[in-house]
């Protein structure tokens, strides 16, 4: 396991804070060039923050290249059926991204 998926699934910061920073040029300038590329737009961050824990864990796992329920289960320790449900949930919300696509949200620490 590359890292603790359950741990990174935690949301450390309120989405309203990210939203405010992204809409305030002075605050945004202080965050440095990595902020927007890591968080994506505020709406992307909010979309991810509205996922349930299993979906968010699956989301990170998919970003890391685990693209089926069995692999995600192996990588994250999540039950395979739960991983399958989470993948379906991600697909419904249009949030499944390939490895080569931009990662819209930074992983938590």
């Amino acid at each position, binding site marked *: 396991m590359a890292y603790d998926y359950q741990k990174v*699934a*935690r*949301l*450390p*910061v*309120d*989405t*309203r*804070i*990210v939203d*405010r*920073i992204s809409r*305030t040029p*002075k*605050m945004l300038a*202080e*965050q*440095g060039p*990595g*902020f927007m590329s*890591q*968080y994506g737009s505020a709406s992307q961050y909010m979309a991810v*923050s*509205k*996922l*349930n*824990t299993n979906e*968010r864990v699956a989301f990170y796992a998919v970003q890391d290249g685990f693209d089926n329920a069995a692999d995600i289960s192996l990588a994250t320790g999540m039950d395979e059926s739960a991983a399958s449900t989470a993948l379906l949930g991600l697909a419904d919300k249009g949030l499944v991204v390939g490895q080569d696509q931009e990662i819209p949200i*930074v*992983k*938590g*620490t």
Partner: protein
Amino acid sequence: MKGLIVVGLVLLVMFMLMMPLSVYAIGDPEGGVSIGDCNVFTSVLEPDDQLYFVRYDVSYSPEPPEDASDTWQMAIYDTDGVTLIPGATRPLNFYQHNIISMYFTAAQVATLSLTPLSEFKVKIMGNPAVFDPITEDVNMQTVTLAASDWKELSDLVTYLLAQAQILEDDWPLITLLGDTGLLNSTGAYYFLLAIPGLSNFAPEAFEITTTTYTFTPGVFTHDYESDLADKKGERLTEGLENFGGWLGISGNWMSFLLVGVLFAVFAGATFSATKQPIIGLMMGFLVIMCSAWVGLVSLTMIFIIVISVAFFFGITFILGRFA
């Protein structure tokens, strides 16, 4: 008539059903609720006031759509843990890992009997109007203040900057502290939301801040001026009063007139002897200073004259430069 009443009642019920109601579907935080730090600072803005600070984590996953200020709050209970200090609740600004505070003026501290070093219970809890039941470790977290949790104003800046560092470490790629180690505008914005008035409590914590300038006027007794005025003695005072009375002016104006005459005589005599206007004026001012020292003219008057002369000289000098 009876039918009319029934129709009226039906319309009333329908109207009530159509009224918008605030219904919250928020549940307990999946990741639980925890308190990282809780401290009280005393005498931050005035002697004996109190500032209660909490760093908390109301860990939702996913984040609820309801505003945190409608659903969660900070509350301070008495040492028994069940008696809410009157008015001691404040809605949270944000979910997840964040900070909040409550400030009590010295008058409020006295009225509410918030005795320093007491073991008050500080809670981060769901709003009782939204959550039922309120359960410890589920939708409420309580800390009991220990004596060591009570701190002085001198600890505040270091403490808050440490708190900002903790948040910055936990909030991925969000910078709250600038290169100077002080709160940048992002950090300032969120800390001021959590601690209104912080720029007055601890202006040193900010890279850029606006504070209110407080002017405390000194107490002036005019003792020295009175001592000088007494130097001219009763006889001279009486003489000036009588002479002034003969001219229809007060003794003080008579003194001023006398000093003016002395100034003109000495300045004129010096100018006649030296043909130097500056030396003449200096001699004249020497006469005025001596007059103040013997009590003929008040120090206040001297200062007004000096400031006026300096002002007009300044204008003449500056305008002369650009003429």
